[in-house]
């Protein structure tokens, strides 16, 4: 079944069509969210929320305007940005409890991995330290395989702005790599 047929079925309340879409797109969405947020727990929450939004807003998807994967990544990206904003506000309110919890979760995630991948860990930390727009641009183009035009559409910026964000992200990461 094509994306359009699946989405039409989702609009009519067909849960098996919903499950087929989840099977098809979850991996890409979860990888993107993980790279954006850096921990499993929040990644899972974002993924659940993304597909819940797909179910609720299925009728709003316009196949002539964007591919389903582009639309889903736009939802996931908006949720990640909201999460990061909320998270930043929480920090300014000095609610350190959740921050400690998130950090702890992140540490657990890091320790779970092979310590031999030290360079990767440092690179991951450098990626997480990038501004959201640079990180998002890099993740969408490098990992998710979107073209610059598609990634710009997901981020709601011009292609030039996206390319500039990628350039800055790569420059920062190359500097980090040269220090490792």
């Amino acid at each position, binding site marked *: 079944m094509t994306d359009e047929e699946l989405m*039409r*079925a989702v609009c*009519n*309340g067909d*849960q098996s069509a*919903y*499950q087929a879409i*989840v*099977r098809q797109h*979850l991996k890409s969405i*979860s*990888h993107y969210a*993980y790279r954006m947020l850096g921990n*499993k727990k929040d*990644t*899972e929450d974002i*993924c*659940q929320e993304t*597909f*819940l939004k797909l*179910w*609720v807003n299925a009728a709003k998807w316009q196949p002539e305007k964007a591919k389903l994967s582009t639309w889903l990544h736009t939802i996931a990206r908006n949720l990640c940005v909201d999460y990061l904003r909320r998270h930043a506000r929480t920090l300014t309110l000095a609610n350190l409890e959740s921050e400690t919890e998130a950090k702890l979760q992140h540490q657990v*995630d890091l320790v779970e*991995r*092979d310590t031999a*991948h030290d*360079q*990767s860990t440092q*690179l*991951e930390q450098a990626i997480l330290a990038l501004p959201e727009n640079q990180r998002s641009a890099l993740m969408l183009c*490098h*990992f998710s395989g979107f073209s*610059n035009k598609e990634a710009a559409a997901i981020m709601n910026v011009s292609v030039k702005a996206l*390319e500039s964000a*990628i*350039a800055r992200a*790569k420059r920062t*990461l*190359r500097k980090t*790599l*040269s220090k490792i």
Partner: protein
Amino acid sequence: MMNFDKFEKLLNVHGADSRSWPSELRRSCTELLDSSRQVRALLASHQLLEKRLNQLPVPELASLEATVMHQPLPARSLSPMDRLLDWLAPTEGFTLRLWRPTIAACLPLVFGIVLGNYYSFGVMVEPSELEFWEDELAMLSLDDYSENNF
């Protein structure tokens, strides 16, 4: 003419794999790479970054698929207008199989009505004939049937 800045931009936009560079620029890039050590170092650092990015571990989220698939979804409630539209113009299901042949069968009928409404096809109806029929009906109503022998 390719230079360092243009080449750096090309690496940022198209990546470090020369196969993904625009074919019309590939030759000038190769010439620049042959002529400058600085450019070669830039390419090497981009290649290293891409290699490291590709080696980043992928998270294990084994239970996530089941969680997302079976999360409680809100029930869909169609408005009466949506239900009416679905009934009138179904997009799927058994009714769609009947609906399309019905529409196909009705099309010549509609076409005929429209055509007949606009074209007379040589059949002329005089307005005075219609008036005559009214008079005829009036005379029939006044006729005396008592003399008729059945």
